């Protein structure tokens, strides 16, 4: 059997993290292929249901990444995101999925940081193994 390659769903802020991934690509940094990025206008708009739906659909890990506190295009997006994440973590903890979730702040110029985060996350998820909800997705395929 082929080695397990985790699937990460990433919610990336249009202004910072998404641009950072572009920067990494234009700088020809080898990008890990485990991530599917979903561009959102601000990390503050990510709702818990986005993350839960990603897990429900069989994602092995979920990343929510956006601007740093001082960079936000909409002033207080990261603060909103933090409040959401704090609540969500508790729910994910009860579900036993907390370890598969990560919140990061990656600014536009940090293409290298972006690739490092994805690599770290993929490595960590490989150790954890496939998500317990994966079976649902395989049944659909």
């Amino acid at each position: 059997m082929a080695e397990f390659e985790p699937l990460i769903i990433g919610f990336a802020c249009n202004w910072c993290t998404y641009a950072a991934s572009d920067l990494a690509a234009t700088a020809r940094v080898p990008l890990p292929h485990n991530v599917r990025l979903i561009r959102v206008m601000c990390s503050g708009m990510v709702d818990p249901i986005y993350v839960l739906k990603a897990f429900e659909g069989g994602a092995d890990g979920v990343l929510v990444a956006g601007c740093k506190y001082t960079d936000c295009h909409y002033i207080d997006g990261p603060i909103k995101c933090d409040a959401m994440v704090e609540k969500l973590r508790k729910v994910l903890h009860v579900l036993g999925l907390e370890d598969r979730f990560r919140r990061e702040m990656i600014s536009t110029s940090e293409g290298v940081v972006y690739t490092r985060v994805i690599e770290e996350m993929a490595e960590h998820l490989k150790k954890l193994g496939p998500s317990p909800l994966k079976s649902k997705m395989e049944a659909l395929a």
Partner: protein
Amino acid sequence: MNLDNIIQQTKTYYCLECGKCTSICPIAKFDPAYSPRVMIENALLGLEDELVYNKKLFSCLTCYTCQLECPSDVDYPMFVRGARVLAQQAGEHGDYAHSGQLQSLERIMTNPVLKQNRLDWLTNEYRTSEQSDTLYFVGCSPYFEPVFEYSGVRTLNIAEASLKILNSLGIEPMVLPEERCCGHDMLWTGDVETFKKLAEHNSGLIKESGVKKIIFSCPEGYRTFKLDYPEYGFNLDCEIMHISELLAQKLETDGISFKEVKKKVTYQDPCRLGRHLGVYDAPRKVLQAIPGIELVEMEHNKEESICCGTSCFTNCDSYSKEIRAARLLEAKATGAETLITSCPKCQTHFKCAMVNKGEEKGPDVEIEVMDLVNLVADAMGG
């Protein structure tokens, strides 16, 4: 199941179109666009699309108030439950409150290999036993806790107080670390497949554990286990009880010693416990047995009690809020300082309604809302 079957099963064809259901319906009181009578009329005329693609179908609280008045004994809540199955099949659903998180959680919970951490709140303070023949069904409280933190509700308080009560009654219950949601919300919003998966998992676990008695602190779980699991073929062969019934029983047989709690309280009958299962007296008996407690009734009480405004976390709108505000005002008018309920969802809804009190559209009322078990646990000195 098609519309004809639903009409046959719920005896909807007996409808006289008198409109008494609409006149007493708590939703129709505030929402002019919602009418149980029109829903039934559409079904009887064969206008299935009018029924299935109507968002208001998911507004029904399934609180059974309508059946109090219906001269033909039409089972409207069951009719709605059937129609919602058709709606789900057609890809329709209600407007989920809290962005649908709670529904998503229930679907995630259908996975049998999930490793939950649902008993983190269980400390050494509480005595549980793995050989016990009594099970305490914790239900959704560990999930509600973080979601409803904003309204100041601690649903786990209810689980903790229930265990304290059971312990001081000399019962060391079993608690299951891998139990799932009972599936109530899924069943009543028409997602029968998810309900069946959850029911199968729970009934399998319970059979394996070999318990003889299951205690609930949530009326929704109680109703689902008592009526809906057998209906769908999940027979458990267990005695199923609400904690207020257990307390009332113990009061009669052995008596329970309470310390004095000076409080004037009023009691909200949760619809699942009251109209669905007819448990009105047990919680009242328990309240009256506590010295110092003065129980006053609201204008609408027992059978006529008014629902807390939302069911299954679906279609929670401004009308739901108006129902809640009206109910809270009714509670306040009794002069009681505390509104006692025995359903975690009633408590959450009432406290949520008071979150933005004082604002333009917020209710101008404040009253302490508390679960029955919390009061009893305090009175037992636990």
